[in-house]
Each structure stands twice: as structure tokens, then as C-alpha cells.
């Protein structure tokens, strides 16, 4: 009895940390209208929890980079406030920025600098005393150690991206922003990068990444925010999101093509695909009655021969596409 009570309490505590953990980044009423008149951010409210990996998901032009750029100090906000670890990013910019590392979306580098110098420079720029041991660790983690004396201009795109990450980590930030970190990078770098991200998370670093690759958010994030046309339209635990919105599909592959869905199956939400060779049934896997038995009975009663059958959990991608579609 006591045991089960403890378990419930624990699970409640872990499933609703939003009431407990104070936000490390809190964005209130933030807006941005560029000089061109384009409103890139409608009033935005967002709280990032300490130590989490937060994925900001949205199509191109949604305002992801703008939001990150404001928090990091590259773009002036038009209105609203942002606190980073309790420090206002405008009034108390030194304390705020000290804690933040940024890996920008665009690949940029000082062509004629060496890897070692450019990464050490970053640390100095953030006001931290030189620490060759730390720089060495960062370069080794990112497989850059062998290249430390190479000039940046001689590096490949993937290597340059690693250098940008090393620069961002050089001053030991508590909050790390990764803007489209895996856009156009090879598998090896992706793997190394996620290893670094995991290790950072274990060390208590909060990570905010933007992406329009849904698999990335699905793989890495604790929570997901969806932004579209300058508005945050949803913020949810990844698991909860997958569970709540996750729909399943069952696909029946048929022996003979159907011209249309037979009247006897009209009660089921079915779609005909692959030139009539596939029947796709969508259902909610959380429901008591999925309707699968009834459907299969009806199918065989109608005399349709089924060659094969498989089910598929809808991915974040489907969820995302649906969300954005609903909004339009």
C-alpha cells in the first residue's frame, strides 16, 4: 500500500516537472518586426527548463533563427523580454550572454586562422581565462584534435561545422543553442554531435535546437515546440505528443486490385492506395476498441483476399504536417 503510494507520487513528480523546475530561459511577449516591415515573431511566450533538450520545430521562414538570434544578442527585439538564467538579455546582457553558446545556422569562419587559435579566441571573447586543457578536451570530443593546426580554409564543410560547435563550447556555456545543426552534415558528424549533446546534457547543460528534420527532434528532444509563421503553436513533452497525437495506420495489401471501396466497408475510415492494391485503415491506438477485428471480419466476408498486412505508428512528421495544415 505504502509502496504503491510512493510510486504514484514519484511518477507524478517526474511527469509534471514544469511546476517544479524553474525555467532557465523564459521568453515573455517577445515580438520582432524587421525594418522591412515583416513581422517575423508574433508575441511569443516560451519557457525552457533547466537541463532539458528542447527542439524548436518549424518550416523554413517560421522564425526559428530570429527567435534564437534575439536570445543570443544578434538581433534587437521589437518588444517583450527574455531572461536567461534570470538575467535580462538586454539590461543585463553580460551575465546573460556569458551563459550562452551559439552554433549558428550559416557556416562562417576566419579562413586564415588555425583551428586552435579560433577556438581559443572564442573563449577569450567570452571573458574566460585561457584554459588549454579545456580547449584540448573540446577538440578531442569533436574529432578536431588532429586538425588543430590546420587553417580553417583547408577544412571541409563538416569539419567547419565541428569548429563552430567547438567555438560555442569553448567558454563552457550553461545554455547551448544549435540552429539547424545537422542541415547538410554527414552521418559521422551527426553521430558525433549527438554524442556530444548527450554528454553535455548529462553535465547539466540545457540544449535548444532548431530543425525542420522531424527525426532529429524525435530522436533527441525531451520537449518539442512547434513554431509556424512567427507563432508558437504548441509546446509538449515529446512522449506525450507522440502518444496524444500518435495515430496508427494498418495497411492491407490485396491480391486483386479494387476499383472502389465496397459498400460493406463504408463504415470504416479507409483509403484506397497503390492503384487499388492497398487498403489503409487509420485508427487511434489509445482507444479501447480499435475496430480491427470488425474490419478484418468484414473484409473476409466481402471476399477480399489479403496478401499481407502491417501497421505503422504515425511519426512526428505526420503530426507536424497535420498541425500546420490545421492552422492554414
Amino acid at each position, binding site marked *: 500500500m505504502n509502496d504503491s503510494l510512493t510510486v504514484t507520487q514519484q511518477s507524478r513528480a517526474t511527469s509534471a516537472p514544469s511546476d517544479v523546475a524553474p525555467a532557465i530561459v523564459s521568453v515573455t511577449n517577445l515580438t520582432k518586426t*524587421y525594418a522591412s516591415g515583416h513581422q517575423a515573431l508574433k508575441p511569443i511566450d516560451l519557457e525552457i527548463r533547466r537541463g532539458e533538450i528542447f527542439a524548436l520545430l518549424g518550416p523554413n521562414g517560421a522564425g526559428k533563427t530570429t527567435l534564437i538570434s534575439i536570445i543570443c*544578442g*544578434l538581433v534587437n527585439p521589437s518588444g517583450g523580454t527574455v531572461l536567461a538564467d534570470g538575467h535580462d538579455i538586454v539590461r543585463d546582457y553580460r551575465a546573460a550572454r556569458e551563459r550562452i553558446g*551559439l552554433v549558428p545556422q550559416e557556416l562562417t569562419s*576566419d*579562413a586564415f586562422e588555425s583551428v586552435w587559435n579560433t577556438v581559443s579566441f572564442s573563449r*577569450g*571573447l567570452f*571573458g574566460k*581565462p585561457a584554459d588549454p586543457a579545456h580547449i584540448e578536451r573540446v577538440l578531442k570530443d569533436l574529432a578536431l584534435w588532429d586538425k588543430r593546426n590546420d587553417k580553417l580554409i583547408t577544412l571541409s564543410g563538416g569539419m567547419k561545422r565541428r569548429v563552430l560547435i567547438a567555438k560555442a563550447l569553448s567558454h563552457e556555456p550553461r545554455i547551448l543553442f544549435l540552429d539547424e545543426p545537422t542541415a547538410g552534415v554527414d552521418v559521422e558528424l551527426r553521430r558525433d554531435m549527438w554524442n556530444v549533446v548527450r554528454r553535455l546534457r548529462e553535465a547539466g547543460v540545457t540544449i535548444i535546437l532548431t530543425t525542420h528534420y522531424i527525426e532529429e527532434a524525435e530522436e533527441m528532444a525531451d520537449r518539442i515546440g512547434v513554431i509556424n509563421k512567427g507563432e508558437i503553436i504548441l509546446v509538449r513533452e515529446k512522449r506525450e505528443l507522440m502518444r496524444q497525437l500518435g495515430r496508427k495506420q494498418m495497411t492491407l495489401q490485396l491480391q486483386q486490385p479494387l476499383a472502389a471501396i465496397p459498400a460493406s466497408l463504408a463504415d470504416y475510415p479507409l483509403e484506397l492506395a497503390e492503384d487499388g492494391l492497398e487498403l489503409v485503415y487509420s485508427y487511434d491506438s489509445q482507444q479501447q476498441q480499435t475496430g480491427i477485428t470488425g474490419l478484418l471480419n468484414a473484409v473476409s466476408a466481402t471476399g477480399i483476399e489479403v496478401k499481407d498486412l502491417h501497421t505503422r505508428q504515425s511519426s512526428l512528421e505526420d503530426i507536424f504536417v497535420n498541425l500546420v495544415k490545421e492552422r492554414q
Partner: protein
Amino acid sequence: MNLTAVRAIYRFEMARARRTLLQSVVSPVLSTSLYFVVFGGAIGSRISEIQGISYGAFIVPGLIMLMLLTQSVSNASFAIFFPKFSGTIYELLSAPISHFEIVLGYVGAAATKSIILGLLILATASLFVPLQIAHPLWMLLFLVLTAMTFSLLGFIIGIWADNFEKLQLVPLLVITPLTFLGGTFYSIDMLPPIWQTLTLANPVVYLVSGFRWSFFGISDVSLVASLGMILLFLGLCLAIVAWIFRTGYRIRP
């Protein structure tokens, strides 16, 4: 004050100069020396003395000024234009440093480079023409103030310019003509009266005059006017830089 950051920027810029030693030091020193050879030796001996000073010596302060102005402007403008152009400026903008510290790092490095250059040219000049420096401390003061002011001007140009043409246009179309017409090669009382008046609108006249006074004790305009002019110009550049950072002009949308 984030001195570590200022030092990081300063060192970064000085390292860049060392890497491009040929272009940033050897070439300006060499090209200025050619003036001394031509005007100090070859032609200079046929030109009469100006206010008791041989022509070769007379032009030395003006030529150092010419180098100081063009090099300060081009050093500082390139230093800030390039990160803007390549995108690496993102790091500068996201760092916990004040605008003042950014300017201090970049302008400090650019000014240091042109001061070193000025002294090198001075040393080279003394090989070709007999020189005396009447007021060495004033000479250094003018050198430092001018290098700082025009490095600030360069910083402003580097932020304003959105392509390489504009970056080179200002030094070419403004600084060089103003310096050539600013009494580098002549004393302004050698000009027709109307030009004497017009030329007083050229700020470089005051710089060259004051600088030359620190060498030979002769000047076209009063020392106070020279000093006042450079301080005025310094104040103006500082005000523009402050405005740039307050509004985010061309760096922070």
C-alpha cells in the same frame, strides 16, 4: 570591463597583421620611402627651402600623415568589414562585451599598427634626409590622436560599407585627395589667396600643420587650431560610433 575580450580582439587583429606583414608593413614603408628618394634626393635639391627647411625634410611630416590616415582607415575598416562580410561577426555580437570594448579592441589594434608604421617611416626617412624633432612629445601626441581618430573613421566606414567597392572608395576618393591638398607637399601660404582660404576647410591641413610644427616649429595654422580640430574630429567619430551601436545600424537588425 571585459578586458580579456578586448585583449582577445586586439591580439587577433595584431596576429592578422603579422601574417600579412608584407602587405601591411613592408609595402607602405617601401612606397613612402620612394617619395623621400624622389623628392628628398632627386628633385628636392632643385626646390628651394621652405621657411629655412630643405624640401626633403619639409615633406616628411606630411608624408607620415598621409600614410597614417590611409593606413588607419583601411586597417580599421577592413578589420570590421570582413567579419560582417564573412558572417563571423555573429560571435562578436553574442559575446558578453560592450560596444565600447569592441571598438577598443578593433580601433586599438588598427591605431597601434599605424603608429608602428608611422614610426618606421620616420626611421626610414631619417636615412634619406637630415631630420630634427623639436617637440617629440607633441609629435607622439599628434601621431596617437590622428591614428585613433582615423581608425575610428575606418571602423565607421567598415560598418557602413556593404561591398568591397564602397570599402575602397572612401580612402581613394576622400582621404587621399584631402591629404594631397592638405599641405603635405607645400606650405599653404605658397597658394593663391583664394585657395588659402578654401583650404582651411580641409581638416587634414590642421593635422599636417600641427604635426609639422612638432618637427620644425613652423606651422600654417596655430597649434591650438590643430589640436582643436583633431579633438573635434575625434569627438565626432565617437558620436557616430555610439549612434551606430545604439541603433544597431547595419550590424544588428
